[in-house]
């Protein structure tokens, strides 16, 4: 029973997380965006958050590619 629950939980988590480091980075950027929007109250806060997220997409792709080329399994 516990094994099945764990499998379901891991399946659910897998819907959102590929790499924990980048999941935490995404959450940190969202938290930063929330903090900034409390201060600024304008669309600039939203677009700054989106730009940081887009940069993190490029960073995650480069890091994953390096790992895969070194023989890490997907």
């Amino acid at each position: 029973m516990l094994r099945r629950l764990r499998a379901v939980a891991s399946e659910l988590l897998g819907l959102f997380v590929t790499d924990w480091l980048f999941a935490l980075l995404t959450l940190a950027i969202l938290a930063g965006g929330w903090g900034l929007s409390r201060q600024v109250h304008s669309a600039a806060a939203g677009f700054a958050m989106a730009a940081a997220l887009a940069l993190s997409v490029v960073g995650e792709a480069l890091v994953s590619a390096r790992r895969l080329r070194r023989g890490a399994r997907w």
Partner: protein
Amino acid sequence: MGASWWGFGAAFLGSAVESVEALTIVLAVGVTRGWRAPLQGAVAALAILAALVLTLGQLLTTRVSEAVLRSVIGGLVLMFGLRWMHKAILRSAGLIPLSDEGARYAKTARGAGVAARLAGVDWPAFAIAFKGVFLEGLEVAFIVFAVAASSGDLRVAGLGGVAAIVTVAGLGVVLRHPLTRIPENTIKHAVGILLASLGTFWAGEGFGVGWPLDAVSVLPLLALYLGASRLSITLLRTPVRDLTASEAA
């Protein structure tokens, strides 16, 4: 109104991709072992998923404040979209293999072919179809539920999800073959970008960001994530080309 149609598009495309994967599993089991048990398994899984979406959707949209809901669901939609984008980028760059519905079909059919019938009921066929439809359907349910919770319109998101399932199932009935010609990676890439943009937009709304022109702000977000994707693919392909050139020399 604009947000509703973005929601319909996201729900339809996302659900269609996942429905193709579920259809492959049901077709493989049905062709190998007969249609009754896998269809029962698929219907049981769909019924449970529909109940989950309706119950959770109603509960969350009526009990949780709109700002909290948009922040949390927007964040989850964003993470879900980024995950699809990431996979699609690595596939487009040739670093991980493309999803192969033909291979999935053959593997499922092999597994279903050797499983034994128990007490006259084809439980293995039921279980394989149920598990496949339930797991792929969880992603459909999440997309529909998230879009509904964020846009506040369960009808439009649900309609998008149901339209996708009906379209893909209809194609499956007509073709009786896995939909191997659908460019799954391209669709997943596009849906990933769309979900990441919508997730950012909704999370921003939840945080109190005043987006200019409301849902039209999704367009620059789409352009931003599309640009990041293209840049990633270009950067990932460059070293491979250099390596090939040096090997050829």
